[in-house]
C-alpha cells in the first residue's frame, strides 16, 4: 500500500492544483486508486464505477477553489465526502442493482501477479464480500469500505460521515465482527451443501 502523502506536500498540492496540472496529476495519482476502490465496492459494475469516479474528480476540480486546508486528513476527508455523496445519490436513485453483479462486470483486482485461476477465485471472493457487506447496516458498510478500500483513517471517516471518531471505531469493529460471522456462516453453508 502506498504510504501517505506528506501533509505539508499535500497542502501545497491542494493549493497548486487549482491552476497547475502537474500538481493536479500528483494528487490524482495518489488518490485515484483509493477513490476507485472505494466506489468499486460501493457500486460494483465497472461502468458505474468509472462514471462515479469521473464525477468525483470532476466535481473535486470544480470545487477545489473552495477547499480550505484544515490540517492532515482534511483533503482526503473532503474528497471522499464528494465520492460518498455521489455514491449515496446513486443508491438513492436506485441505480445499484439488487441482484449480485456478474463476475465479468466486476472490476479487476489490485494484485496483478495472480494466475488467471487465482484471479478468478479472488474475484469470486470480491463478489462474496460485496454481497455480505451489502447485508450490513448502511453506516457499517460505509465505515468498512472507507477504511479498507478508501484507505481512510478513522478520524477522516468520521469527518466524511459526520460521526464521532469512536463511533466510527465501534462501527468498524462490530461491522467486521458481523461480516466475519456471516462469512463463516456462508462458508459452512456452502460446505454443508456439498
Amino acid at each position, binding site marked *: 500500500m502506498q504510504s501517505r502523502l506528506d501533509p505539508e506536500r499535500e497542502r501545497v498540492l491542494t493549493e497548486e492544483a487549482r491552476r497547475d496540472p502537474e500538481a493536479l496529476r500528483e494528487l490524482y495519482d495518489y488518490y485515484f486508486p483509493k477513490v476507485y476502490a472505494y466506489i468499486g465496492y460501493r457500486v460494483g459494475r465497472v461502468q458505474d464505477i*468509472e462514471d462515479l469516479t469521473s464525477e468525483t474528480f470532476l466535481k473535486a476540480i470544480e470545487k477545489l477553489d473552495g477547499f480550505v486546508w484544515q490540517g492532515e486528513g482534511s483533503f482526503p476527508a473532503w474528497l471522499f465526502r464528494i465520492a460518498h455523496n455521489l455514491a449515496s445519490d446513486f443508491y438513492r436513485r436506485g441505480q445499484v442493482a439488487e441482484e449480485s453483479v456478474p463476475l465479468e462486470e466486476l472490476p479487476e483486482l489490485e494484485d496483478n501477479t495472480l494466475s488467471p485461476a487465482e484471479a478468478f477465485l479472488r474475484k469470486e471472493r470480491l463478489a462474496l464480500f460485496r454481497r455480505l457487506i451489502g447485508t450490513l447496516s448502511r453506516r457499517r458498510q460505509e465505515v468498512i469500505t472507507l477504511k479498507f478500500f478508501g484507505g481512510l483513517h478513522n478520524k477522516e471517516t468520521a469527518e466524511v460521515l459526520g460521526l464521532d471518531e469512536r463511533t466510527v471505531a465501534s462501527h468498524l469493529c462490530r461491522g467486521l465482527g458481523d461480516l466475519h460471522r456471516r462469512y463463516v456462516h456462508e462458508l459452512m453453508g456452502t460446505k454443508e451443501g456439498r
Partner: protein
Amino acid sequence: MMNEENELTERERGLLEEIEQILANERGERREADSLYGFCAHLASTVPRADDDFRQRLESRLVARLQQQVSMGEARPPWFQRLALAVGRIRQALQPKGGMTLKWGLAFAALAVLVITVSTVAFVPSVRAQVGEILNTWFHFKSPGGGWEVALSGPAKFTPLQPTYLPDTVLSGLVSTVGSVTTGAEDEVGLFFGNPDDQWLYITQRPALAERALPEGQRVQVNGREAVLLTGQSGVLVGPPRPLEEILGEKLALPPGCLEAMAAESEPGKEPAPLPPECQQAIEEAGGIAIINDATYRTRPIGPPEMEYENAMRLIWYVGAVKVDILSNLPEEEMLKVAESMVPVEAGEGESPFGPPLDPPLR
C-alpha cells in the same frame, strides 16, 4: 457525544491495531479467514483496480477541465466570480439586523412581473472568510422604469453609477442583476440588464487609474466627456443571469440552529466562526443552498452560465473617479443615450435606510 455502546472492548482495540497493520502491510497477507484477523486480511486483498486506459483518459480529461476553468476564470468578470457565492447570503445577512444591509456582494431585482434570476450558490469556508471584509457603505439602485429598487452594501471604494434611461426593449427584457465585488485592487461593480437572448447591456465600473487611459477606437462624447466606442466585439460573457427556476431545487430543512449560526458568523468585523459540522454537512450534501424568504432551497448543480456575443459594442469613458465600460448589442444611438443617462447611485455610510430588496417571485 459518546455512549456506552461505543465503548470498545480490549479485543476490539486489538482488532483496530491489527487492521492498521494489515492495511499498512500490503493487504495481501495470507491467513486463514476463519479468524477475524485473517478475514480482515482477506477482505483487504480484494481491492478493485481500474483499467489503466480509463485512468489515463480521466487524467487527461481532468487536466483539460482544469485548464478550461483557469482560462474561464481569467476571462470572467471579477464580480461574477464572487456573485454566485454571495447570493445565498442575502437573506441571512438581512436577518440579524432586521434591516436591509447586504453585507457584501449582491442583490437582485425583478423587472415588473418578470423573472428574477440568480446564479449558482455555494457555501464554502473560503467564502465565509471573505465576508469578513466588510465596509458599511450602501448603494441604492433604482430601476429606470420604477419597477424595482435594490440596495447593496459592501466594500466598494467608489460610488457606482446607474442608468436612468433604458430602452423599452431592455426594460421589457427578462432579467436584471446587480452585483459587486471587492478584492484588493479589483473593486468592480457589474450591472446586467435585459435578456441574453435579445437586447442586453452589461455595465462594469471600477475605480479610475491615475493615467485614465482610453483604448484606441472611435472617439465619441458622453456628456461632454471623451469616450471610446469599440465596434465588432465578440466573445463570451460568463455570468449572465439564469432563471431562478433553473437554479432552485426542492425546499430543504436544515438542522435546527443552522440559519442562526450562518447569520451569526457573518456579523461585520468578526472573524467568521466555523459552522456547526451538522450544518456544514447538510449544506455540502445539498450541493449548495439558497435562502429566500426564510425558506432554504437546494440549488441544482449547473455550470456557470455563459453568453456568447458577436458584433457587440463597447463604450468606455470616465466619470469622475470611475471608469465605466458598457458592453451591449444595442444600436450605437441607444447605447450613447443610456451612457448619458448614468448618474451616481444614492449612497451612504452605516446602516442603509432602505428596505430589503424585492422578494423574488418564486413560482
